[in-house]
């Protein structure tokens, strides 16, 4: 389904998202694949039980065999029969900074992935298509690294306290003022861990008697935060504004389930870029709905901050909206800033409230000083305040890389999900065997990718996910594309039935954004 929306003036630029449906033959073959794997899984389990084959899984001790079992073996079926076979595509140990190229420790397995041994060799210069390094700040040399090293020698590595006690450094205050200025909000607060930011702050904002409307494909941190809060959770279809509006209307008309009292608060949880689909939230419509039905919006910009928008201010700037419309702007420093941690930005009263009531502010250790300095330097670089145009160049390079890579992949005939402008590119693999094969073949050709399958994705939508970076040069992308095309021919991955009409290829420069503004 191809959406190109120019929705009544709400969108200032075409919103082009594409989620091509699975071809029927491919779906049937995928089920056959899982069926065969299941049959073999049962056969192997039978052989393991009758001691024809050695069982390498963890089992209880002989003395405890008659006790009530701690775990049900069937729950481990997928793990031991499917995941173990292709386990070498995950948890790969890297031993250098995860920039555009990365070094990986080679490991081999003599018993079909049950145990790994390191050969001692280090595979050097693997093109890194899996790290969330959108603006290329994961470097081991450069201004950010020098500043961080200086702060490390001055403040040390650990803070040894929480924000509320003795862990509130002047660096943290400086960071928060900078983040607030960057986002265009009144005030911001930074936390040590992006996951903890979501899961610990949503319970502080909503509680029992409130309603959370969360997108189908929200990240686990948002889901955990929503569940911990004790509010009622209703899920709307991914990026589907009709579904959201229906839920809002029902909520306001019918109120709370049994008592019919009005909800205390309605909070809409969405993400800027969904990392598994590569889709961008329909923010103008969400904000219009939020204003119409008087609810609150919590926007998680983990992947979109720094990666979208002409100056890298995120999805709000990408759509040309005002940051005051979003009540809680959350994001992480892990992806585009090359550091760790998360932040929440919003009105001053909200942030002051969170400083006292959020679990992560009160109990979790604050950010480490060199990490804070890395964020400060990289953010100033993006904003252009360090006196160079490096930041702007990186943002533009990322946008150019995104457009180029996506267009080339579509022209080759792969099925790619997501919005044209999102730097997260999921390439569909579908069949379980191709997941393992793709990961291994790409590693043989010196390209590191992330692959995901069932049950992390729906059963017929296994994919490989590429994360583009401003640090990727055109040569690296061309090499990667050549190898992807080769592997695609080898594994027959070019399923797409849309033939792309080649557009006039204009060079991507500053004026491209200005042209589409009203």
């Amino acid at each position: 389904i191809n959406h190109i929306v120019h929705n009544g003036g709400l969108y200032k630029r075409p919103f082009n998202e594409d989620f091509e449906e699975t071809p029927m033959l491919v779906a049937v073959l995928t089920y056959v694949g899982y069926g065969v794997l299941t049959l073999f899984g049962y056969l192997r389990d039978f052989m393991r039980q009758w001691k024809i084959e050695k069982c390498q899984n963890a089992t209880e001790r002989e003395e405890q065999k008659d006790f009530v079992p701690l775990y049900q073996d069937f729950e481990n079926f997928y793990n031991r029969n499917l995941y173990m076979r292709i386990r070498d595509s995950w948890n790969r140990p890297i031993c250098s900074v995860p920039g555009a190229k990365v070094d990986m420790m080679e490991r081999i397995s003599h018993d079909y992935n049950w145990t790994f041994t390191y050969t001692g060799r280090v595979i050097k210069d693997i093109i890194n298509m899996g790290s969330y390094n959108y603006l290329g700040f994961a470097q081991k040399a450069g201004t950010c690294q020098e500043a961080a090293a200086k702060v490390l020698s001055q403040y040390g590595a650990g803070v040894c306290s929480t924000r509320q006690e003795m862990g509130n450094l002047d660096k943290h205050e400086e960071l928060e003022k900078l983040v607030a200025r960057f986002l265009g909000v009144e005030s911001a607060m930074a936390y040590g861990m992006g996951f903890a930011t979501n899961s610990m702050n949503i319970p502080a904002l909503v509680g029992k008697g409130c309603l959370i409307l969360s997108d189908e494909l929200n990240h686990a941190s948002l889901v955990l935060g929503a569940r911990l809060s004790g509010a009622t959770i209703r899920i709307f279809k991914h990026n589907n504004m009709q579904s959201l509006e229906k839920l809002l209307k029902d909520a306001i008309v019918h109120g709370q389930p049994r008592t019919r009292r009005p909800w205390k608060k309605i909070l809409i949880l969405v993400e800027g870029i969904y990392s598994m689909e590569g889709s961008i939230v329909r923010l103008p419509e969400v904000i219009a709905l939020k204003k119409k039905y008087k609810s609150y919006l919590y926007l998680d910009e983990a992947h979109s901050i720094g990666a979208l928008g002409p100056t890298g201010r995120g999805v709000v700037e990408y759509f040309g909206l005002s940051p005051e419309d979003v009540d809680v702007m959350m994001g992480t420093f892990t992806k585009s800033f090359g550091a760790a941690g998360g932040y929440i930005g919003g009105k001053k009263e909200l942030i002051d409230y969170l400083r006292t009531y959020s679990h992560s502010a009160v109990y979790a250790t604050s950010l480490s000083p060199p990490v804070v300095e890395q964020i400060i330097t990289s953010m100033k670089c993006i904003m252009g305040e360090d006196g160079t145009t490096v930041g702007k160049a990186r943002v533009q390079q990322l946008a150019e890389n995104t457009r180029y890579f996506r267009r080339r992949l579509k022209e080759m005939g792969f099925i790619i999900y997501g919005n044209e402008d999102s730097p997260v590119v999921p390439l569909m693999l579908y069949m379980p065997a191709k997941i393992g094969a793709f990961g291994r073949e790409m590693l043989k050709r010196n390209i590191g990718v992330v692959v995901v399958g069932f049950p992390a994705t729906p059963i017929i939508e296994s994919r490989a996910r590429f994360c583009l970076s401003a640090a990727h040069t055109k040569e690296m992308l061309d090499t990667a594309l050549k190898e992807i095309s080769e592997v695609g021919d080898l594994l027959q991955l070019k399923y797409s039935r849309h033939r792309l009409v080649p557009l006039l290829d204009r060079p991507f420069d500053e004026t491209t954004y200005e042209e589409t503004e009203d």
Partner: protein
Amino acid sequence: MNVGVAHSEVNPNTRVMNSRGIWLAYVISVGVLHVVLLSIPFFSVPVVWTLTNVIHNLVMYLLLHTVKGTPFETPDQGKDRLLTHWEQIDYGTQCTSSRKFLSISPVVLYLLTSFYTKYDPAHFLINTASLLSVLLPKLPQFHGVRVFGINKY
């Protein structure tokens, strides 16, 4: 396995029967079974149809009404561990479209089988018993029922 998953579906098993192409895959696999049985030289056509019906119902009973739980860990701490796959479909909502499809397909197969066995009494008994064994557990009244405590834990 909500850890590391990209959706907020608590139990992906509930959605498998609604996925794209699975009904077609099911019909094709019954067809393949039938063709394989037809290619065995000793069986006559009525015997082959009865065998198809019986094997189909047996496998369906095994997969949908005997095997319990999920082959992967779910984040709800095993709420569905004692439920068979049929009971897990759509989180227990009755009369959804995949439940209707899976209830009607043994009946269609039964009608075809009765025609091709020329309504012979012996075949009729076997086929009807087999059909009942696979239709009764699908009734909404039998949701979660374990007769004589068989297959309870």
